C-alpha cells in the first residue's frame, strides 16, 4: 500500500538536517520529501517542471512550509496550493522563524491550517515536529479522496 509522504519546504540546509533528525526520532511511517524553494514546491505539487513525471495522484498528507523562501515566497506557495483543485484540501502547517503578527494573519487568511514558530531549543524543536505529525497524521481526520 502507498504511504502518503510529508512535504517539507525548507531552504536552510541546517534546518533541513535538524528536521530530518527530528523526524528520524519520531517514527512516522510517512516518507519525508524535502524541496528547497518555493518554485520547486509548486512544481512538485502540480507535477510540473522537474516533477512533470511524478504521479499527480500521489499528494502529500501534509505540507510543512517555511515562509522565507527563495524564488517564490512561502505565502505565494500557500496561495497556489489553495487555488488548485488537487491540492486545495492538503493540510498546510506554516513552520517558520517569524512570529510577526502580519505573517500570522496573512498565512491564516490564505488558508493555512496551523502556524508554528520553530523553537530555538532543539528539544522543543523535536517535540514540536512530533506533535505536528501526531496531530495531523494520526489524530486529524481528512476526507478519503484527498489528492
Amino acid at each position: 500500500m502507498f504511504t502518503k509522504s510529508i512535504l517539507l519546504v525548507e531552504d536552510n540546509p541546517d534546518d533541513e538536517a535538524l528536521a530530518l533528525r527530528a523526524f528520524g526520532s519520531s517514527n512516522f511511517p510517512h516518507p519525508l520529501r524535502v524541496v528547497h524553494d518555493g518554485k520547486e514546491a509548486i512544481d512538485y505539487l502540480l507535477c510540473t517542471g522537474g516533477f512533470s513525471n511524478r504521479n499527480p495522484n500521489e499528494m502529500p498528507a501534509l505540507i510543512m512550509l517555511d515562509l522565507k523562501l527563495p524564488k517564490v515566497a512561502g505565502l505565494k506557495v500557500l496561495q497556489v496550493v489553495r487555488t488548485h483543485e488537487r491540492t486545495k484540501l492538503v493540510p498546510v502547517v506554516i513552520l517558520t522563524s517569524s512570529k510577526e503578527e502580519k505573517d500570522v494573519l496573512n498565512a491564516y487568511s490564505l488558508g493555512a491550517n496551523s502556524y508554528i514558530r520553530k523553537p530555538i531549543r532543539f528539544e522543543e524543536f523535536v517535540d514540536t515536529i512530533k506533535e505536528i505529525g501526531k496531530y495531523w497524521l494520526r489524530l486529524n481526520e481528512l476526507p478519503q479522496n484527498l489528492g
Partner: protein
Amino acid sequence: MFEQLQILLVEDSPGDARLIEEMLKESHIAEFKIKKAKLKSEAFELLKNYSFDAILLDLNLPDSYGIETCTTFVREYPQIPIVVLTGNESEQIGEEALMLGAQDYLIKGQIDNRPLARALRFSIERFRIQKRLQNSETRFRIMIEKNDDSIIITDKGGIIKFVNPAAEKLFNKSKEKLLGEKFEYPITEEKPYEILITRNHDDKRYADMRIVEIEWENVPMNLLTLHDITERKTAENLLRESEERFRLISENSLDLISMVNENGYFVYASPSFETLLEYPTRELYKKRLFDLINKEDLEKIPNWKNKLQSKFRIIDAKGFWRWMEGSSYTILWKHQTFIISVCRDITERIIADNEIKKLNAELEQRVVQRTAELEAANKELESFSFSVSHDLRAPLRSIDGFSKILLEDYKDKLDSFGQDYLNRVRHATIRMSNLIDDFLKLSRITRIELTRTNVNLSQIALDYLNEQRKINPERNVKFIVSPDIYVYADSQLMKILMENLLGNSWKFTRNHGEAVIEIGSYENKDGKIFFIKDDGAGFDMANAGKLFTPFERLHSSSEYEGTGIGLATVHRIIARHGGRIWAEGEIEKGAKFSFILP
C-alpha cells in the same frame, strides 16, 4: 314799505293802553304790531310765546310796582329794548330806569304820537347798535385774551400800556406789574426778531417778536406781538446736538460710512474715505460707490438692499485694492431710497490670514512629507525586525540543534568539560533568542498605533498577580490593589506595562519570605499619579538613571534573570502616551514606580 315792529305794551290802564295804541297806529315811520298785557305775569307769558322788538312798560302794575318792574324786565329780557312809561310826577324814576338799562322813558300825559313812535324807533335802533358793538367788542377781546401770542402795546417811549394774558404768562409777571413798566427789549420796526426772555437763571423763553406802529386812542403806539418759540427752539437745539453727535461719530470713525442714492452715487461719505482711501471728499460725490468695488466681489454680493455682511475689495485713489468687510441696508428717506453702508478695512487682517493659510498649507505639506518619511522609516524598521526575527534566529537554532546532536551522538567522545562547554553554548543561544524577542517587542511598542480607551489597571493587575500565584503557589505575597483604577490609554500597551512592572515586583520579591505588592493612585497638583510598589530587592538610588535604559541591568543574571528590556519597554509605553515615569528604591527595602498620564 314800513318796517314792521312787534311791540309789547304792558299797561294796566285800559285807557292809556288804547291811547298809546292809537298813537302808534297813526305813525308813519314804522308799522307797529301791538300785543297788550295788563299784568307782569301776562307780559311774561307773551314774551315766552312771541318775539318782540321792544317793550313799552308801565312801571306801576297790579303785580309789580315802581322801579322794581324795570329791574325785573331788564334782568329777564336783556335782549329786548325797553321804553319805560312813567306818571307825570316822576322824571326821576325815568332817569333811574335809564341807569338800570332801559332805552328811554316817556312821561304819560306829555306823550304825543310823533315823539312816541320816534322814541320807540330810536330805542330799537340804538339798542341794536349797542348790541352789535357789544358783540364786536367781545369778539375782539376774546381774540386778544385767548391769543397764545403775547400782545403788548407800548408808547413811543417803550412804556407798556397794554398786555394780554399770554404776555403775562410769557414774562411771568402780572398785568399790574407790567403796565407802566418800560419794555426792556429794543423796539425797532424792522424784521421780526428773536428775543431771549430770562425769567429765572434756569428758566428761559425764546420768542419771535413783530412790531407794528399803530395809533391807539389817537396816540402813536407800538403793537408788539410775541410768539413763544421755546419748544421749537429746544427741539431744534436737541436736533442740532443730536446731529452734531452723529456727525462727530461718523466723522471720527475709522470705518467707511457712506450713503448712496439708488443709482449708487454718494450723498455722504465719511472723512475716512479721504484718510483711508485718499479720495478727496468733493471728488467722491461725483462717483458711484459700486464703481469703486471690485467687479468680481460685487457679483458675489447677492443683494445690497438687505442688511448683509460681506467681504469685498475697494480700490483706493492710488489703485490698490483694499479688503473691506461691512454691511449695508436700504432706507427710505424723504420719499427716496438710499443705501447706507458701513465697512471696515480688513486688508491687514486678510494679509495676515493669507499668510497663516500659506504657512498652514506649507506646514500641512511638510507634515505630509514627514509622515511619508516616517512611514517609509517605519516600513524599513518593520522589514528590519522581520529579518531580525527570521534571520538572526535561524543560526541560533542551528547552534543549539547541532550542540544538542553533538551531546547526544558524541557523548562518549566528549569529556565532562567538553559537555559543559556545549551546554554553555546552548545556554547562551537561548539568552540570545530571548534578547531578540525582547528587542522585537520593544520596537513593536514604538510602531504600534495608540487606541485610547478607559483601561482598568486594577483588573489587569489582579489578573496578572493571580496568574503568578497559580504558577508559584508556595510564595507568600500579599496584594493590595486599589479598586477601579482607570487610565485613558491604549489597553494593549497598558497590559504590557503592568505585566512588566508587576513581573519585576514578583521577581524581585521572591527572595523575601513575605512580601507586599501594592497598586494605587493619588491626586496631586500635577494630576493623578499611579504607583506600583513592592518591598523586594529594591535598588540603589544612585543607579536610578540607568533603570530605563535598554539592556541595562542592576542585578546579575545569576541573581535575577532578565534581558534589561522590560523597564525600557515600560518607559517607552509611558513616553508614547505623553506621560512621565519615575522610580524610587532602596536596596532590600523595595522599589516604587510612579507614572502620570496626560
